[in-house]
């Protein structure tokens, strides 16, 4: 266990042992079981509608490199949504990724929560993407948000939604022509969203038996992540800023990957197999990593360090 783990564990033990006073359950239950009025819905709903802005981070890996261009927001035509639902307005979208084999298909992420519900709660909504315009220079996309009406409340209670989903939904956009060098613009705020091109992300030339590619997505700080799943672990190849070249808890070995010095390190979570990170710098501004996360739910072993290095050295 390293210093940070010890510090976190100690802080947690102190937190649990400090008998801080919890509010009275009975008093709070009075408020919880009292029927409420829909007029209280307005403020949190309005706030959550606007609080879904995605953050676009420009990276050299993106096909549309994103110059921070901000066009005037486009007035979007009112779209049609799923049957029985009503339109709640447009929301921002984020993290566009070009399809690996179809150059006219782009995937974007949009939130599914926050536009309808009772006080302090929100229902799942359905985001629907639509193309506002396609020009030789740009494609403008809007995402509308839709929700179905709530059923009438039962006696002595109130409607609620079982929204527990913390993640966004990926939407598919089929363009009339390949995206090419065109930029993608969000109609909601007029901002350009850099598009991740799978061709720009390193790919494994050697895959151990049972491992398959899963997909490509944006990672933290404008990085790109290519994922693989195997019987005993998952692998992710990340390419991005120079700060990616780091090590985890302790260094196991030093090696060479793609002609660059690389470190092999491992982290530790009590009760679980160690995860392994291989990291190196591609150039002065870019770095890459291969991360193996062991799968605790299977008895199949994760890849050995030697095998993982072999996998890393096959990256092209």
């Amino acid at each position, binding site marked *: 266990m390293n210093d940070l783990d010890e510090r976190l564990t100690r802080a947690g033990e102190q937190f649990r042992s400090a008998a801080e006073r919890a509010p009275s359950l009975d008093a709070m*239950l009075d408020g919880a079981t009292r029927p409420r009025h829909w007029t209280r819905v307005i403020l949190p709903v309005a706030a959550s509608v606007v609080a879904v802005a995605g953050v676009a981070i420009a990276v050299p890996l993106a096909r549309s490199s994103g110059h921070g261009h901000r066009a005037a927001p486009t007035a979007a035509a009112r779209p049609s949504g799923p049957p029985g639902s009503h339109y709640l307005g447009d929301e921002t979208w984020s993290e566009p990724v070009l399809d690996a084999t179809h150059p006219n298909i782009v995937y974007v992420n949009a939130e599914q929560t926050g536009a309808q519900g009772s006080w302090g709660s929100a229902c799942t909504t359905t985001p629907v993407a639509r193309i506002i315009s396609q020009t030789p220079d740009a494609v403008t996309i809007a995402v509308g948000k839709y929700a179905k009406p709530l059923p009438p409340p039962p006696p002595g209670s109130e409607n609620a939604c079982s929204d527990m989903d913390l993640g966004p939904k990926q939407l598919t956009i089929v363009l009339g022509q390949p995206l090419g060098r065109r930029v993608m613009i969000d109609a909601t705020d007029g901002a350009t969203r850099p598009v991740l091109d799978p061709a720009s992300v390193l790919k494994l030339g050697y895959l151990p038996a049972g491992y398959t590619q899963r997909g490509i997505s944006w990672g933290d700080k404008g990085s790109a992540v290519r994922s693989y799943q195997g019987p005993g672990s998952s692998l992710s190849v990340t390419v991005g800023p120079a700060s990616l070249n780091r090590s985890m808890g302790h260094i196991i070995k030093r090696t060479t990957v793609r002609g660059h010095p690389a470190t092999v390190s491992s982290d530790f979570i009590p009760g679980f197999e160690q995860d392994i990170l291989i990291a190196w710098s591609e150039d002065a501004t870019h770095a890459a990593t291969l991360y193996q996360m062991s799968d605790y739910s299977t008895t199949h072993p994760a890849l050995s360090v030697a095998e993982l290095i072999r996998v890393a050295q096959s990256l092209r």
Partner: protein
Amino acid sequence: MPAPAAAVTRRTAEDREAFADWIRPHWDGLAQLARRLAPPAEWEDVLQEALSAAWRKRGQFDEQRGTARNWLLAIVADQARKGRRRMRWLSRVADDAYEDEPADPDLDRAVAQLAMRQRTAVVLHYYLGLPVADVAAVMSCAPGTVKSTLSDARTQLRRALGEDYR
């Protein structure tokens, strides 16, 4: 035979008592999670709203899909997330400080500055002492995702705390 309105009221009171008995063993943990995840001025509101949501959704709880504790913690985490969104947009009140003096203020400050998913995983795992499998149940994701989230969080914490990276 009581009038229909009186019967509904009585049923609600009986439901309420059963609900209180069901919640009570988990109440301190729910309060602890709200205290750690929500802005200091809002954590009791978050707890109240989570309790309201749990009351309204109680018919949806399915013990075949998980424990009551994890279901309730998930509701608190969800309410805290929404509360932080509201705070960010309505008032931009600083949320990186706590009312009570923590045992390790530097660490607490660093944890408070983590992204919400990372912070949720760290608080559930380290502060509430949940195993990774339970954290995954609360966060509705795979245990592997929790592990990578914790790993990313620790990387962020090391940076924030200035620990050597070797």
